[in-house]
């Protein structure tokens, strides 16, 4: 199994600032994803983090707002830029290796924007 850690676990930020969330997996994985879970809602995929190339964003999410890096097979970052209160959410990192029967999730980063 893979263990995923995220930093920070939670943060309170001011409107207009940016926050970078780190995701570390304890083993090499081929696919990494970033999800958002707004209060009382299900998970929405933000993007697939591709190693060595630009992330693939879902409809409604853009690179300028959510820049993502994935420099290697075990690490990725998500930045939430120019934050507004609407960005208050839980951000979850996830990892999967095709052919294996599990997709793992990190513990999440709880973000509150004031």
């Amino acid at each position, binding site marked *: 199994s893979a263990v995923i850690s995220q930093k920070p676990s939670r943060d309170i930020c001011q409107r207009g600032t940016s926050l970078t969330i780190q995701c570390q997996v304890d083993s090499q994985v081929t*696919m990494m*994803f970033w999800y958002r879970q707004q209060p009382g*809602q*299900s*998970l*929405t*995929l933000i993007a*697939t983090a591709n190693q060595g190339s630009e992330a693939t964003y*879902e409809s409604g999410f853009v690179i300028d707002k959510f820049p993502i890096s994935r420099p290697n097979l075990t690490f990725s970052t998500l930045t939430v830029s120019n934050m507004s209160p609407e960005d208050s959410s839980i951000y*979850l990192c*996830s990892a*999967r290796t*095709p*052919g294996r*029967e*599990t*997709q*793992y*999730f*990190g*513990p*999440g980063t*709880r973000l509150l924007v004031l």
Partner: protein
Amino acid sequence: SQELEQSPQSLIVQEGKNLTINCTSSKTLYGLYWYKQKYGEGLIFLMMLQKGGEEKSHEKITAKLDEKKQQSSLHITASQPSHAGIYLCGADIAGANSKLTFGKGITLSVRP
């Protein structure tokens, strides 16, 4: 419209009772994942189903995927307070080991 529908939206059961929750799609489910989430925490992987008619069990939880691969059920036998939480189904509906789409989740409460 929601691509994955979960029902019921919430459920309250007495400890010791059995229960079943469902996850339904209008599209083929190439991989169906069940997760449990405690409030404010990450997702705990429960089971993954791929084949039509497949059934898996872990402790008191059994998950099934129907033959058409468009509906999955999760059954809990003799529920306990530790089973309380939000149950989410996620599915690969595009095939080829692609991204997962999630339902809205089912909130389960178990009364002692």
